[in-house]
């Protein structure tokens, strides 16, 4: 089965690249400012974004950037789109925040809104909710960016009847460091023959992730 990447976004050192081209989002060292600027630049208009933890914000920003200007969601119905993501830090950044809110007996005020983000796969849920995507999904935690794992999982998922496309990639956030590669995978078909795409393989993913 031939699978293709029809759009991708990388975020490194708080700089956003879409299909290899840098977006003109002001450089920000502080993650919250970076996410706020990226949100405005991409004209996302989704108030729930501001309630999300940093991992979910990173996933939403990278996904929206990859989708912007793409007809991916017009070509593929929400129930036919899978989401497969991975990272290294899991939800550790938010786990620490939550831990800090319950450390002191005298100031024991756990935040339910923080607690709900203490799982890494919540970022998948946020992307799925925003676009009403109901296909299968999986989140993997690994020691580092693993192109083989990501290619294999996309192939397994897209071999399932009913799955036509997938939003895949790496979304890692810890201690203010944001690192992401989100790419849109589609099966070879006439509907994508007129757009620029790359074959999905380990070499391409390694090249995109650099």
């Amino acid at each position: 089965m031939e699978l293709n990447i029809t759009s991708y976004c990388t975020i490194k050192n708080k700089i956003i690249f879409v299909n290899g081209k840098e977006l003109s989002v002001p450089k920000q060292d502080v993650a919250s400012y970076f996410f706020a600027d990226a949100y405005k630049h991409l004209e996302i208009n989704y108030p729930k974004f501001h309630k999300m933890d940093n991992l979910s914000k990173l996933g939403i920003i990278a996904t929206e950037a990859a989708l912007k200007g793409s007809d991916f969601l017009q070509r593929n119905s929400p129930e036919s789109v899978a989401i497969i993501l991975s990272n290294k830090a899991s939800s550790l950044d938010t786990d620490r925040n939550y831990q800090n809110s319950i450390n002191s007996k005298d100031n024991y005020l756990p935040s339910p809104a923080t607690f709900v983000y203490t799982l890494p796969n919540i970022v998948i849920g946020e992307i799925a909710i925003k676009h009403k995507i109901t296909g299968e999904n999986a989140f993997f935690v690994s020691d580092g960016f693993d192109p083989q794992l990501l290619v294999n999982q996309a192939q397994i998922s897209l071999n399932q009847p009913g799955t036509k496309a997938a939003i895949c990639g790496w979304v890692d956030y810890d201690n203010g460091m944001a690192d992401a590669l989100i790419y849109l995978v589609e099966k070879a078909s006439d509907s994508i023959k007129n757009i620029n795409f790359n074959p999905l393989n380990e070499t391409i993913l390694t090249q995109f992730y650099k």
Partner: protein
Amino acid sequence: MDALIEKLKGQIIEQLNLAEVKPADINPDAPLFGDGLGLDSIDALELIVLLEKHYGIKIQNPADGKKIFESVRTMAQFIKDQGKS
């Protein structure tokens, strides 16, 4: 009461991370859930935390929540009734 309502609006915006909402945007009589601010169940829990954190009020009976959190005004009235304003 008006001063408490204004203070409460700011606290709700901060507690719920309503980054795109200004105090003036909140109608004190509009429903907090559903059509009003469009809050969800997690926000409801955050409002309970807000009452405890800022006013030292613990809601003893969860069933009272629906009435207390109907609007900013009902929240303010509840705080006032508890003698915590």
